[in-house]
């Protein structure tokens, strides 16, 4: 096993979920390459080869728009996530690219105190291994359930 690669990827994933859970949404687009793709879909759509996403972006600019909409446009009750990422399998696919598959769970904590398992699923990532900082070229969030409770505001 390439221990250094494994640690590099796990560190990227850890920094990614801490940024979301700490409400540093402005940092979120920076985890992607300029033409980075991000989408959230359901396991059902993914397995049936249906292309619909719950969130779909194909550039860092689209991710930035998502953040500014959440900050300035969309109305939703105050809430946070607590992500747990585990069981990360990493595979090198070239000198500067790796693929990773991880499990994740996100607990959603509402301002009212209600806490629930909001989403579980897989991260299917393609990662560019830059000299300075690795980033996602593609991140597909495949949620296990076809159903989302109330709304999905903060990205997963």
């Amino acid at each position, binding site marked *: 096993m390439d221990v250094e690669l494994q640690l590099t990827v796990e560190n990227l994933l850890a920094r990614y979920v801490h940024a979301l859970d700490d409400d540093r949404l402005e940092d979120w687009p920076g985890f992607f390459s300029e033409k980075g793709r991000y989408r*959230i*879909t*359901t396991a*059902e*759509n993914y397995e*049936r080869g*249906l*292309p*619909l*996403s*719950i*969130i*779909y*972006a*194909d*550039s860092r*600019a*689209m991710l*930035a*728009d*998502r953040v*500014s*909409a959440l900050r*300035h*446009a*969309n*109305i*939703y*009750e105050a809430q946070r996530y607590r992500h747990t990422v585990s069981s990360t399998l990493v595979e090198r696919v070239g000198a500067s690219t790796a693929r990773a598959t991880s499990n994740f769970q996100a607990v959603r904590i509402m301002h009212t105190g209600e806490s629930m398992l909001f989403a579980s699923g897989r991260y299917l990532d393609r990662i560019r291994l830059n000299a300075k900082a690795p980033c996602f070229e593609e991140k597909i969030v495949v949620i296990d359930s*076809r*159903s*989302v*409770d*109330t*709304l*999905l*505001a903060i990205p997963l």
Partner: protein
Amino acid sequence: MSAASESRAWPAEGVTRVPYWVYQDEDIYAREQERIYRGATWNFLGLEAELPDPGDFKTTFVGEMPVVVSRDLQGALRCFENRCAHRGALLCLKGSGNTKEITCIYHNWTYDLEGNLTGVAFRRGVRGLGGMPADARPESEAPRKLRVATFCGLMFATLSEATPSIEQYVGPEVAAKIRRVMKEPVKLLGGYSQALPSNWKLYFENVKDTYHASLLHLFFSTFRLNRLEQKGGVIVGGEGGSHVSFTMMKTDLAGDEYERAGMRSVSGGYRLEAPQMLESVDEFGDGVTLQILTVFPGFVLQQIMNCLAVRQVLPKGVAGTELVWTAFGYVSDDERMTELRLKQSNLVGPAGYISLEDGAATGFVQRGVAGASARASVVEMGGRGVESNESRVTETSVRGLWQQYRRHMGL
């Protein structure tokens, strides 16, 4: 009905007042199942495109009643209760699939794709012992069959013989607007569900409420997708519970009604870094950029620019609703068009830029009225009647919903 709900009398004002017990009362909920979902209404089942081949089936609900929808081996669409004649178990556990017959897993009773009981395991016993009496008629408890109507590739079902044809049910103007969107064979793009923490009627009102659209949803207003001063209108159809509202974009670029009124929903400095998502194609050739259409009690057809979807509104208890979204394009779409539809799907669904708030807003009402079942909401925007209107600063289609609802419920 309990004594408590017999005392439920609708406010004297009529459809301009909606009593909050209507979203809270268990007896009212039970009566809705009987008189609305199992009564003379057309319930949306899904797109025909979900069942293209003989033997295809899906499971869904008519109100709370589980049903199987199938394309039989002759190619006809069928709908029947998902309940075994024997002990009432679900016949079909899968969400969808293809099969020649359906077998109840409990005692292996079998059914054809029309819902007919075709086999009872060990009906004549084993080696002369056991089995059913010769005159037993288990078919008497067979799953009920629903009438199926398809209209422009949309599937509806009703248990009642009294339900008029689907076109008559929605009225000619709403029917024409269904034809407008369902103009050619469709291609499924995918789906998902949203669990809403509110009574089904709060969501159905929300979809019909043209007044809220540009006030709650800032994304709309800022990018002039649906400004009330834009050209558009509301058409109320059928018994009142079906409607269509529409907007023609890019007709008001000088409009400043919102800015002058100082509404929260206008934010001057907000700009998209990647506005390409909103570059839509006028594929209907009529300039209408947004059309929202409903059919009582639980169907929504949506065209938001090039983002097309159907939504099925399913009651899940007094304070819960499942909203089933299915997005589609046309078989004739090229790759670029599909990509545009997929990008614009960011506008809708549980994370939709212009629908995200709806999931929460209806829940705010459910929570807000918890201690006020004897009070009522005020529905007087645009007058007190139920009629089509050129303005969308109106609640006419919300009043239309209550008109049809009260008629079915005898309230």
